[in-house]
């Protein structure tokens, strides 16, 4: 289908980094979004502790996405970020609030509610901003002379607001199924009921966005309703429904890891769908992967490191998850 050259390998690697970010930080952002729906005190302590040892690693994938983009697709980095100025700044500020809450929350009794709110709002704003940014990117970005050529409110449309909402609900689903997997008793029970709601909400919003996207741009219509790529229009939704079935079974039969894994599956499939829509563009309608790529010397130099280091990173990240595996026992400390 295409010859495997450096630019495409890098597009795949950046896509992988962003996907890793979305599913990993997705569940800990989701825990933040669900925070106010659980009673203050022990239950929230437990929720936060379920992600405390891993959230920093999860967020590092976002830095890799940003840094990697600057390295291998500098033109994308230099045009998309100014185009999405407001949502990106909002996301960064949101991440500041929720990130510090992990430590600050334990440093005060009187002020703990402040950091509970910061954790919730920070997570919510960051998630919403990411979803809006995605929607704005799908709509396309005006580029002239290697510079962003649109206005600084172009990103705000009904479509991008819906994608923002969809990502918030989707992250909440990841968070709920994560808590269902990692906790016991009241927290688990409440998380499970949220998993039901957010599963239905996520499905509905995926449906809306999927049906809307082909009408945003003729390219997407072509892609999804013309042979041979039309096959995806049948395969992807069926695969999503299969994940929903797994999740359903997992929630009913109390197999607590299944719903989380199924939610990951849904995210990966939707992400794949976006990839199908975009290819071979990296900024839809404006820049192809080939056009945006950095000079070969840059691509090669970083690829050597990426090929060696990414497997190592995956290995020790897996180790860190393994150390903190299993359900958290709320009664025992680690003193």
């Amino acid at each position, binding site marked *: 289908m295409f010859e495997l050259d450096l630019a495409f390998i890098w597009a795949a690697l950046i896509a992988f980094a962003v996907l890793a970010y979305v599913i990993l930080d997705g569940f800990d952002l989701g825990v933040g979004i669900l925070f106010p729906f659980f009673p203050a005190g022990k239950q929230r302590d437990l929720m936060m502790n379920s992600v405390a040892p891993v959230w920093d690693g999860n967020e590092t994938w976002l830095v890799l996405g940003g840094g990697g983009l600057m390295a291998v697709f500098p033109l994308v*980095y230099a045009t998309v970020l100014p185009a999405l100025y407001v949502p990106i700044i909002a996301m960064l500020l949101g991440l500041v609030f929720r990130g510090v809450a992990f430590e600050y929350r334990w440093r005060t009794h009187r002020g703990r509610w402040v950091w509970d709110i910061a954790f919730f709002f920070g997570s919510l704003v960051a998630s919403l901003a990411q979803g809006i940014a995605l929607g704005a990117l799908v709509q396309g970005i005006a580029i002239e002379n290697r510079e962003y050529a649109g206005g600084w409110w172009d990103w705000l449309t009904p479509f991008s607001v819906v994608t923002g909402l969809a990502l918030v609900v989707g992250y909440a689903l990841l968070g709920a199924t994560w808590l269902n997997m990692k906790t016991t008793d009241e927290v688990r029970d409440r998380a499970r009921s949220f998993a039901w709601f957010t599963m239905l909400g996520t499905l509905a919003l995926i449906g809306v966005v999927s049906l809307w996207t082909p009408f945003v741009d003729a390219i997407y219509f072509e892609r999804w309703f013309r042979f041979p790529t039309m096959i995806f229009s049948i395969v992807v939704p069926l695969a999503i429904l299969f994940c929903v079935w797994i999740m359903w079974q997992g929630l009913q039969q109390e197999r607590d890891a299944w719903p989380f894994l199924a939610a990951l599956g849904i995210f990966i499939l939707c992400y794949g769908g976006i990839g199908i829509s975009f290819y071979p563009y990296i900024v839809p309608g404006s820049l192809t992967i080939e056009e945006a790529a950095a000079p070969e010397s840059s691509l090669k130099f970083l690829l050597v490191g990426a090929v060696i280091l990414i497997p190592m990173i995956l290995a020790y990240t897996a180790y860190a998850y393994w150390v903190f595996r299993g359900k958290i026992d709320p009664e025992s400390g680690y003193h």
Partner: protein
Amino acid sequence: MFEGFDATFLARLQFAFTVSFHIIFPAFSIGLASYLTVLNGLHLITGKPVYRSLFDYWKTIFAVAFGMGVVSGITMSYQFGTNWSVFSDKTGPVLGPMMGYEVLTAFFLEAGFLGVMLFGRERVGEKLHFFATAMVGLGTLISATWILSVNSWMQTPAGYSINEAGQFVPEDWWAIIFNPSFPYRFVHMVLAAYLTTALVVGGVGALHLLRRDVDTPGAKTMFSMAMWMAVAVSPIQIFAGDLHGLNTLEHQPAKVAAMEGHYDDHPDGAPLILFGLPDDEEETVHYEIGIPKLSSLILTHEWDGALRGLKSWPKDERPPAELIFWTFRIMVAIGFAMLALGLWSLWARWRGHLYEEPWLHRAALFMSPMGFVAVLCGWITTEVGRQPFTVYGLLRTVESSSPLDAPAVGTSLLAFIAVYTAVFGAGTFYILRLMNRPALAITGPVDQDGPLRSGGIMPGPSHEKDATGHV
């Protein structure tokens, strides 16, 4: 409300503000991560509980500082694109891969082992826990290596060519990474981080020694270790700083002229100006008090060494002397004050008074935040001294910024100021409160009066009811 400003100026203000906040945390966490590794290692080797309790004491503080470093750092990694898009497009092929390597070799390493270091001692055992701590420490140093290489390349670019799109294209990675100013800047900054941390640790030790409410091995051990560090590292730092200055003279003479406040050429020996008010408009230093020829002696190692003045560059290629003349002097003064503190402590130690000299402890307490001041002043000197370029001599600052309107940049600047002040203000308050704890009193098993959130991912019992009753 931002009509009177131009967008580039606001973008510079925003970058200066966010990066100044950010650098404080790495400067502290680079040093503290190494200190924690040493403490953990000493505990592993000697088995003395004092090292374990010091580890737990500083670990809590590290966790808060590191969290602030992470979130302020994520902002930095996106700000190049949002506010400096032309710079990113042009330098991305050179600087991007280095930052990519920073993420791959350093950030993941830190983040991957941080959880184990903070919460995992009982889960993985002492030795693996030490290993995790060492990996976090190593990660901070690797991170410093890459980002200082990036910054140094902007000061002394090498190993590149320029393509038809105006992008810098890497030709020789070795020359890019080990560009002429990198080794000097790296050594100078890592030593600065160590000294900054030593001053903080020493100040906290001194505080608890001064209080005399807790006469413990903890306070003594940390004060003693910090003072050894000050006396050993500050002379090396002064020497390294001098070499760095000579390197700057070779590659960026205009910066040195601005630091020295030299407007006129001095073909036969330049004075060292101790005090004065540089005036870039009138190209003179008001109220100048100087020592003849000393500047030439320091910079060229000759009494009559010739030094260029700012007037020998066109006005639009000069860095502003009014600012960096002062920031440079403050940094140097603090450096010598550190050396003085170290020597004083050595004298007191030799006489056996190290823990009984209240004036030494007061001095250490006064000096405890000074490392941060020196780090900020040093960075202002080198970054403002690079102006009016982002890539020295090749890419002007005014040609680097994004095509944004002043109101957009101005509004986000205000948002950053408001959020950072509130969030990092609170964080600083929590850190100071943690330093105020006499948790050093722990000499027995740590479980009993362990530090806050004694290392579980579980909710620890009554987090803040420490011995002082501070909540």
